[in-house]
């Protein structure tokens, strides 16, 4: 009996520690002018981006790979390759449909990895779903909040034209993404560097350094 209680106590403490590490959804003060619109940081039209990606897993393990993302209207295609050009993962995803994986070698061959990777790609490259609301955080920082069912995305514009993004699931922080050294390409804001931190025990960090950003013809 004591052993069982101890087990549940440990479980509770572990869960508490895990949640304590997570960022909780902050309150915002709505903007005075509801007509203000959130800045559009997300590339419109068709693009091909190539990044050098360095990843660190919370459970240990790290590596470097090349990542390719192709945005083509509502479809996103992505590939993860070794520096030497071997394809580790290749998939496409259309909004509202299951991810179609055309190639995945272990350990990248799980549904969880495919869904997680596509989720990261959508978060970074596509405007969040949900209703947009301008506001300010308690410290006065401007924020644009997108609220969808069970999911909130806060985008904090930075003075240098870049942005920081926090995503929350059921009020608990799941991802923080920081864009740095942004440059404007047409109407799009393209960061030179992106840092993504995924929280939790199965968490990971990604550093994405832009190698190329290419606007594709509309016919693609």
């Amino acid at each position: 009996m004591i052993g069982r209680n101890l087990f549940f106590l440990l479980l509770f403490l572990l869960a508490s520690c895990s949640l304590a590490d997570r960022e909780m959804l902050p309150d915002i003060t709505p903007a005075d002018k509801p007509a203000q619109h959130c800045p559009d940081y997300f590339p419109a039209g068709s693009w091909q981006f190539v990044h050098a990606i360095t990843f660190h897993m919370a459970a240990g393990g790290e590596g470097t790979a090349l990542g390719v993302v192709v945005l083509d209207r509502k479809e996103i295609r992505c590939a993860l390759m070794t520096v030497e050009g071997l394809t580790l993962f290749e998939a496409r995803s259309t909004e509202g449909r299951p991810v179609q994986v055309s190639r995945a070698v272990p350990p990248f061959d799980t549904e969880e990895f495919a869904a997680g990777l596509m989720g990261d790609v959508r978060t970074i490259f596509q405007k969040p779903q949900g209703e947009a609301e301008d506001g300010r955080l308690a410290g006065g920082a401007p924020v644009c909040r997108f609220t969808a069912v069970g999911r909130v995305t806060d985008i904090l514009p930075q003075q240098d034209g870049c942005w920081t993004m926090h995503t929350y699931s059921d009020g608990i922080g799941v991802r923080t993404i920081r864009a740095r050294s942004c440059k404007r390409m047409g109407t799009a804001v393209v960061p030179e560097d992106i840092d993504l931190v995924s929280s939790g025990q199965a968490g990971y960090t990604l550093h994405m350094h832009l190698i190329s950003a290419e606007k594709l013809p509309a016919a693609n």
Partner: protein
Amino acid sequence: MGRLYSCLLVCLILLSASVLAWSAEKPVRLRSVQADFTQETHLKILSRPLVSRGIFAFQAPQSLRWEYSSPLHSILFMQNGRMEKFIEKDGRFEQDKGMGAGSMQFILPEISSWLEGRFADNPVFTTVRRDARTIVLTPKEPGLQAVISSIELHLGQQEGVMDSVTIFEGPDAFTRLTFSNTVLNREIPENFFRMQ
């Protein structure tokens, strides 16, 4: 995955070393080989192929430098059975610790036969000579077949020089390495094969 990937990487590198010095008539006695290469990766999802460039150097018996200058500056060294890979980050080279070197022990014993052009003795690939200038290699291991369906080696007009290597990963997915400025049997300083 780490073992398979490392094994595959080393296979490809050593294979390139071997075929660069391949002759259509007879194997060339190889002491060293250097070349520039352009690598094009084609995938169905890509609107444009991904192009990488770099240099390659091998010196018998077991010194290798495989360097990508773009799009990501990285260097793989192999010397006396020890393999190290470095990737440039923020202007400094950092060792890639994700590189499993254990599989080197598996593949290194094969290097001598590969470099003498004895592809048929290869435990990793089945070899077929399609024509005078094309050799096709097919992986024997099912695990490797899942990653690579075949490799085509195209021999150059000049004796002892390889034009290109095409690695077919599957339908609509291949990577082609095209070699240029190949130099055979010129002495290369040993410090070229380690990080300075």
